[in-house]
């Protein structure tokens, strides 16, 4: 808005754009390389130029001649269920943190958020032992439950911001109008936090989909997810980099597509908890 920085002018704007392009290239290059790898036949795998004859051979191997699709399906089940569970548990929690006053409220809120700080490696050993002992190892239920450590804090923090933004007067008005608290929640509050629900839900899905350490160590043949399985293509006599790349690309697809679809909601949802106005 302030034009007094006019002496930056044209030079400034051009160099800004150039810098951004360079960085974008730097960030996206691995992705690009991965896609290219997935389309290269084994024989041309180690070429350094971009000239190659593309083939769908790797995708065919992954989909048709391996059990990759089973694990893709696993990932879908586990991620979606984890998000749904987080919604059911997290939305009321977010509301409580936004509206009610109780002892240690901020401590509890921070503790919930802190689950995201801890690296998964830190807790994986005890979890592994517990899971073995309780029979949760390699089950959908086990994974869905442990995924809450990833999805729940995120969802609560995003939705808390949305709930805080709604004036408590609106709830009071609806109550005075003759609605019970539950009806107010369903008819008035939920529609108002819908953008938050969408943003948080999709974001949590992306994080759940990407989970690596938990499924790696807490699941095996039955429940393991596609993020882990992509590595399997490495662990044989000849390393089929092309197939690894293909598996990884397929694995990345759902979240990339989702992220592109909801990108504007994402920005809003992410910054909501941070910026209080």
């Amino acid at each position, binding site marked *: *808005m*302030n*034009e*007094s920085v*006019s002496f930056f002018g044209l030079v400034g704007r051009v160099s800004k754009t150039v810098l951004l392009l360079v960085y974008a290239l730097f960030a996206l290059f691995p992705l690009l390389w991965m896609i290219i790898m997935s389309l290269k036949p084994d024989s041309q795998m180690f070429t350094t130029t971009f000239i190659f004859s593309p083939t769908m051979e790797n995708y065919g191997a992954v989909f048709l001649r391996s059990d990759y699709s089973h694990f893709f399906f696993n990932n879908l089940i586990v991620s979606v269920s984890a998000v749904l569970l987080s919604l059911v548990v997290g939305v009321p929690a977010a509301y409580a943190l936004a509206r009610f006053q109780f002892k240690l409220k901020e401590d509890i809120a921070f503790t919930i958020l802190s689950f995201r700080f801890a690296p998964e490696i830190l807790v994986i050993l005890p979890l592994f032992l517990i899971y073995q002992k309780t029979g949760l190892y390699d089950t959908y239920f086990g994974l869905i439950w442990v995924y809450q450590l990833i999805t729940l804090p995120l969802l609560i923090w995003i939705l808390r911001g949305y709930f805080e933004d709604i004036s408590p007067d609106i709830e009071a008005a609806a109550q005075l109008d003759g609605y019970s608290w539950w009806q107010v929640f369903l008819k008035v509050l939920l529609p108002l936090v819908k953008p938050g629900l969408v943003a948080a839900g999709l974001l949590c899905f992306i994080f759940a989909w990407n989970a690596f350490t938990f499924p790696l160590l807490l699941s095996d043949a039955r429940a393991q997810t596609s993020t882990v399985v992509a590595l399997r293509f490495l662990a044989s006599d000849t390393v089929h980099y092309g197939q690894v790349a293909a598996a990884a690309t397929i694995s990345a697809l759902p979240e990339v597509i989702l992220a592109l679809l909801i990108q504007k909601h994402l920005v809003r949802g992410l910054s909501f908890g941070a910026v209080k106005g």
Partner: protein
Amino acid sequence: MAELTLRALTKIYNAGTPAAVAELNLEIRDGEFIALLGPSGCGKSTTLRMVAGLETVTSGEIVIGKKVVNQTHPKDRGVGLAFENYALYPPLRVRDNLAFNLKAHGVSGQEIDKRVAEIAQYVHIGDLLDLKPAALSSGQKQRVNMARAMIRRPAVLLLDEPLSHLDARLRVQMRTEIKRLHAEQRFTTIIVTHDQLEAMALANRIAVLNDGKLQQFDTPLEVFNHPANEFVAGFLGEPPMNIFEVTLNSDRHLIVPGTDFALPLNDKLQRLLGSRARTKLGVRPWGVKVNSTASGSSVPGTVSVVENLGDETHVGVRYGEILLMASVPVTDRFKPGSKVQLTFNQDDLNLFDTETGDRL
């Protein structure tokens, strides 16, 4: 102390959008207190910021003294700005807040102390000098804010809505203090406000702005008694002026169709009306006299509402969509439902063109 001239000052934020400030021309004399008055979004704050140098000018000139200052850096323009939100430096004592500016200009320590003591006396903050902003009340912060703007002895003092965040009582007190301060110090001052009482009380002349355009620039009494157009007439004055549309009927009366309101035309009104068939009639509540008996040109009506407000009484008479308010002496006794006859002080009647809004 200096004169300030704005020549065709214009500010357009985004090409293609209407100007925030359009071709503003103002000549402010040395020592004059000017108010930029208007509703939010009218361009008053933008104008102030351009004078201060915090906004660039799209076109036009700002002249302080004899110098065109468009390209001059804010710190060299000789303006002192008191911000709306005080903007005091929290870790510094009041004394240091005041001195901050002077230090940056290389003024000697001795001179700084002298000036701090001086300004503390004018603004009555002597006992606050060693406190930090957190320990001050809003009113005190506001005075320190102003002292800081004044300590550099600016050519032009700029006040950005200084009273808007104070409670009613403090606002009235500070208003008196600012008025007194100006009477003693005579800084050339521009105040930005949306409160017309503030502008009326403080300014030597008021510049009324709307939608970026200057509506009128004159003394408070002139702007109040002879408003240039409908906007100015309706904006100044509490209770606000009654303004409503009337049409000329075949009987040479100005009427509100469908109601009992019928004001006979006299020479003055006829002359102002010209050939128009419709006009807007404006009359301040104090210009409406409410009587129990009819007289020559009185307008009949029935009292719809009575407000007893202590030292004044408001009587409202309804004509269709219009509720005509009159301020009457507290001794008058009217009740809703009373039949009354209204007469109007000829000098208090204003006509406005229905299209342009200009006063006729």
